[in-house]
């Protein structure tokens, strides 16, 4: 009874402090709102209009139709014309263009050869068909480079003048859950995980340290407050804040970016609660280790960066080396992303992804235990 009273006293106090601190209170709402709108529009992995150069040595009807066909894909945009390979390479080095399309002098001859090969007719000179042209690509940005690579075997049907049918694809791909391949469908659940990780860990990691720095802790530990009561009392307000942030992100994501909400709301809330609890205990552990708020911030960033880069939103989990996968497995965000993608996009229930849910639950219990044990009600 008294224990509940003390927990609620601490919770109420945290809310009061938050409400007196207008900026922090505003950030609770503004961080998800602004970031979702910004990134929802800004992040797009379907690259378009890459600035490219053209080096047309053939100067023929065929070369002009090929460059027109490339332009029509909208992947690149020719912003420069070069007259030598040296000039083209310089253009890439200077950063004027990301790639250069080189169409060689013997382009027409190559086209004839490739048509003969495609037509299955008797080979003119037992020669394998050679590529028509070459892309010189600035490979430093892998996403841009792979977009250009996708042009490698682009069909040139209209140039073939109907002599050859475009080859049938080996596989048909059926895309579930996001048939139009809209990036926002991936971004919104990912942003939910990032924003929750960020605000939850940051708020709690400074929570105990702030009381220590301001001297409040010296007073608190002479009172009957138990360590666990203090921890719980400090966590509860942020659980509610986390739920508010989740509603903003998923609500806006649904309304503005048409992200389908296929799962039940109750399942989404359960999943989010599990993740919020895990993130908060992580913050609390930091809070009991750090001596100053600056140290707490540094440790938060130390955890935040791998969380953002390794949890499978920026780069697919499957593409990571084994060691990185192990690290990712420890991060609550990885498990949350699996759950929330499952629940929001695939309409799964938390039970369907119970392994990840159990991990988050275990993480919270162990974390809370560590934080309580590490926080001793003494000054030495």
């Amino acid at each position, binding site marked *: 009874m*008294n224990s509940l*009273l*003390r927990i*609620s*006293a*601490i919770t*109420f*106090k945290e809310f*009061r*402090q938050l409400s*007196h*601190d207008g900026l922090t209170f505003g950030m609770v709402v503004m961080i998800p709102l602004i970031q979702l709108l910004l990134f929802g529009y800004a992040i797009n992995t379907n690259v378009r209009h890459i600035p490219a150069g053209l080096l047309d040595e053939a100067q023929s009807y065929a070369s002009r139709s090929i460059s027109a066909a490339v332009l029509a894909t909208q992947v690149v945009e020719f912003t420069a014309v070069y007259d030598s390979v040296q000039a083209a390479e310089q253009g890439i080095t200077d950063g004027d263009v990301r790639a250069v399309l080189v169409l060689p002098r013997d382009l027409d001859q190559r086209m004839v050869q490739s048509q003969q090969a495609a037509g299955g007719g008797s080979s003119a000179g037992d020669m394998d068909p050679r590529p028509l042209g070459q892309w010189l690509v600035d490979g430093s940005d892998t996403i841009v480079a792979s977009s250009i690579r996708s042009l490698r075997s682009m069909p040139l049907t209209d140039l073939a003048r109907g002599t050859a049918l475009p080859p049938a694809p080996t596989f048909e791909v059926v895309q579930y859950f996001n048939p139009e391949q809209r990036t926002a469908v991936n971004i919104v659940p990912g942003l939910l995980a990032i924003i929750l990780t960020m605000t939850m860990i940051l708020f709690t990691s400074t929570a105990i340290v702030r009381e220590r720095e*301001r*001297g*409040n802790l*010296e*007073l*608190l*530990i*002479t*009172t*009957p*407050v138990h360590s666990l009561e203090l921890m719980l009392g400090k966590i509860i307000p942020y659980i509610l804040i986390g739920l508010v942030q989740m509603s903003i992100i998923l609500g806006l994501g649904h309304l503005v970016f048409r992200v389908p909400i296929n799962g039940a709301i109750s399942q989404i809330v359960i999943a989010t609660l599990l993740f919020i609890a895990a993130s908060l205990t992580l913050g609390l552990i930091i809070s009991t280790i750090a001596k100053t708020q600056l140290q707490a911030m540094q440790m938060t960033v130390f955890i935040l960066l791998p969380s953002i880069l390794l949890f499978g939103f920026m780069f697919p989990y499957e593409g990571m080396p084994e060691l990185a996968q192990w690290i990712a497995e420890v991060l609550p965000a990885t498990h949350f992303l699996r759950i929330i993608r499952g629940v929001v996009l695939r309409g799964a229930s938390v039970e369907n992804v119970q392994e990840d849910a159990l991990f988050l639950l275990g993480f919270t219990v162990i974390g809370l235990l560590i934080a309580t044990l590490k926080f001793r009600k*003494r*000054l*030495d």
Partner: protein
Amino acid sequence: MTEMAIEATGLTRSFGDLKAVDSLDLQIPKGCIYGFLGPNGSGKSTSIRLLTGLLNPDSGEINVLGLKLPAQAEALRRRIGYMTQKFSLYGDLTVEENLRFMAKIYGVHGRDEKQRVASLLELYELNDQKRQLADTMSGGQKQRLGLAAATIHEPELLFLDEPTSAVDPENRREFWEKLFDLSDAGTTILVSSHYMDEAERCHGLAILANGKKRADGSPQELMDEMGANVVEIGGSGLRQLKKDLVELPEIISAAQQGIRLRVLVDDGVSEPLAWMQQQSAISSGDFELRVVRPSLEDVFVTSTDEEIL
């Protein structure tokens, strides 16, 4: 026999090589106002933290309100109040919010909470400030709020760690009036200070220096049993006279106060006035000498003076 609120024997606590508290023995009877007097770094705060269970001693026995520390520290918390040296309530909460928070933490809730908070606001004259953020208040107001919060659960024993160090003399006097009211109502109070006038108000007193207890007793006892006589010297050329006098082994200290030099002479010298007049530094000049009543500051100086002891 009077009942003891605090009993400690051989209390020792070090931080690294520094012995912050060194074999401290204490007997503090219930119902009194007991003072820790000592310069900064003499171990006052550490002693208080040991006696409240905030720190564990390296060795020694502590018994507070019949409870053994540190084993029964949790059981003690409800029965003591503690006011830290630095303001340690929440600066970003209002006065009323702070008090209501502390009330709930101590298990005072519902109607009791309302009544208690209201009566404390009244008692400590904080009604006009109750909706003000604690950080924006003056030193005296903050300290009244601190005392109100520390007494919200009506503790039997109150620890005050330099409560008046950031407060002007008038507020200090009012603060002590409140302490006497509390004491009158039966609360035992342990207060640390480096102000002599405050020390003189205490029923009992321990003088601490470098972690050791140098003297204890009531202020009157301490002054009577000081082990030195006080001679006041008037005249001109006092700065030079002071330099000459402190060279003598029988002189404990010499300090100028206005136009007079206050000299503490070891009580091994049976006739201090006659002895002084024989000294060449004095007989060579034109000085006026008289023996005066010792003050608590003299006690403090005698008992904390390392070289002599």
